[in-house]
């Protein structure tokens, strides 16, 4: 038995490519997961540098450092890089590393597709970032690419469209692979309602990707044909409708928000029970809540465009549907709190980030509720209040969950414990500075400061200066994150297989680091029962 089971591993050992070729041609889920995570980290720093330029320019009223065109380009590219280059690939990296180990599978179902999904991304972002060096500069009409403004873009336009297509192809291929893996590769005994929440949230995310990314692809293809092939999909002069683009974009855009945040829910649902030393409260309600959020995400898109002028019935429908999302989201938040209730809590770095995620994401959720109310949105639309809202959701939500997950599984991935003191320093600096950065933006928005402007009226000066100082500290403190990761990869205290006293799940039954090929033979059903709670 052992000879036959060991055969594929032995084959790999004899013929495995080394050096750069290993990474180019690898079909191993752990290698591809690592590449996604490293790529994402690089993109975080590129997108973060753009944010620093934005905050530098907004430090004082007036034009100090960059011209308005370049400033607009920075806001546009910061969003595209962070959403498509940093957060989405980071989640796919987590999925690659963890899902096969969590479900007891030897690898992803379609390993060659997996390699291709990753390697599209560096090409996509080379196309996108190269536009910054072109005559006319990079895309500057906002990441939402609304026509007719975006159609005025110069040489960068086709690069933007093809980059978005490539990113979309990569995401769809990754999503297909994840669904195919979870539906077909689970170990015997691993029924759907025994799956870890991270796997559940990722399946739901993958369905959202498959249903929403083609809509974005369709919309940007129509932009391309409007620009170069004489169509008038979005041109009123030719019988088209520019508002139709907004409908198409946000039919993708709102599910995209949940694509970015649902895996974060899965991460919190893994970390909080571990450090509370209690089973997750309300497992099945967590699954149904995630599915409900996903369904609702497809019927709320027009809350992003209340101000375009739509029938009262439309405004009411989208307002009610939007605030309805608070119900399943509230279920999740209450379940996390109930999991912590009377638990034997300890506060290692992953738990600190997970708790901060729950608290700060909820603040982002509340401001989202405010924006979802139509008459209030008329007041807040396109102000800094919106900027504050979605940064609470995406930075203290998605990014904090990514950091929590990184600290949580880093010992499993590398075989070494990370530096706890450095981790805690990173946490406290990040948590304090991120609130200094984004909380004042609520005040700015309520006072009427518009978003996407390089200059502003003097009454907004004080809070902008505070926000920029928070931004610089937050940006600098991420260097600690990289130092912590590099230190952990290079060495440190050996990690045990279980790593955390309260950790449960199949990935913790493997050694730290896990073998290159894990679960070549599926784990016994008893292992699955023992690993679950």
């Amino acid at each position, binding site marked *: 038995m052992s000879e036959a089971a060991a055969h594929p591993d032995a084959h790999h050992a004899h013929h495995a490519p080394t050096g750069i070729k290993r990474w180019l041609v690898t079909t191993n889920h752990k290698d591809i997961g690592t590449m996604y995570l490293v790529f994402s980290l690089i993109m975080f720093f590129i997108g973060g540098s753009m944010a620093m330029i934005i905050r530098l320019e907004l430090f004082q009223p007036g034009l100090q450092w960059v011209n308005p065109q370049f400033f607009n380009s920075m806001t546009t590219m910061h969003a595209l890089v962070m959403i498509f280059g940093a957060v989405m690939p980071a989640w796919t990296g987590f999925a690659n590393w963890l899902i096969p180990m969590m479900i007891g599978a030897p690898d992803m179902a379609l390993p060659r597709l997996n390699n291709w999904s990753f390697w599209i991304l560096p090409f996509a972002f080379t196309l996108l970032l190269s536009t910054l060096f072109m005559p006319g500069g990079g895309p500057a009409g906002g990441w939402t690419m609304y026509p007719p403004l975006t159609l005025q873009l110069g040489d960068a336009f086709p690069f933007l469209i093809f980059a978005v297509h490539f990113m979309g192809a990569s995401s*769809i291929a990754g999503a297909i*692979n994840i*669904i195919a*893996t979870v539906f*077909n590769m689970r170990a015997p005994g691993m029924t759907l309602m025994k799956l870890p929440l991270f796997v559940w949230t990722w399946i739901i995310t993958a369905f959202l990707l498959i249903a929403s990314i083609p*809509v974005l692809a*369709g919309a940007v293809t*129509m932009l391309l044909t409007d620009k170069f092939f004489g169509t008038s*999909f979005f041109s009123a002069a030719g019988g088209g409708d520019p508002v139709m683009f907004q409908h198409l974009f946000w039919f993708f855009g709102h599910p995209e928000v949940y694509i970015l945040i649902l895996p974060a829910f899965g991460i919190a649902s893994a970390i909080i029970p571990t450090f509370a030393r209690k089973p997750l409260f309300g497992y099945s309600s967590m699954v149904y809540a995630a599915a409900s959020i996903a369904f609702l995400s497809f019927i709320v898109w027009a809350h992003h465009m209340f101000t375009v002028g739509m029938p009262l019935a439309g405004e009411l429908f989208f307002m009610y549907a939007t605030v309805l999302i608070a119900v399943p989201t509230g279920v999740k938040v209450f379940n996390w709190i109930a999991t912590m209730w009377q638990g034997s809590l300890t506060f290692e770095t992953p738990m600190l980030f997970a708790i901060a995620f729950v608290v700060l994401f909820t603040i982002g959720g509340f401001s989202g509720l405010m924006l979802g109310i139509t008459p209030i949105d008329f007041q807040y639309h396109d102000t800094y209040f919106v900027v504050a809202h979605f940064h609470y959701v995406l930075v203290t939500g998605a990014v904090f969950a990514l950091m929590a997950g990184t600290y949580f599984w880093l010992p499993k991935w590398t075989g070494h414990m990370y530096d706890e003191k450095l981790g805690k320093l990173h946490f406290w600096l990040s948590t304090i500075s991120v609130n200094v950065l984004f909380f004042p933006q609520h005040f700015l928005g309520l006072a009427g400061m518009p978003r996407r402007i390089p200059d502003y009226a003097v009454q907004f000066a004080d809070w902008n200066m505070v926000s920029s100082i928070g931004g610089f500290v937050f940006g600098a403190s991420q260097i600690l994150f990289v130092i912590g990761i590099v230190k952990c990869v290079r060495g440190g205290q050996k990690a045990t297989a279980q790593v955390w006293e309260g950790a449960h799940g199949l990935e913790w039954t493997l050694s730290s680091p896990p073998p290159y090929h894990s679960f070549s033979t599926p784990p016994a059903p008893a292992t699955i029962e023992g690993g679950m709670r």
Partner: protein
Amino acid sequence: MIGRMAMSRQDEQRKAAVRTAIVLALVALVFYLSFFVSKF
């Protein structure tokens, strides 16, 4: 023997996975194309 059985199980899983992937890819393609068809 058990190892061989495990391999053939994996082969079956892979075949099923390819079928799942083809169906999902077709769904994505139909979504993509339907937007053009509806607008022409």
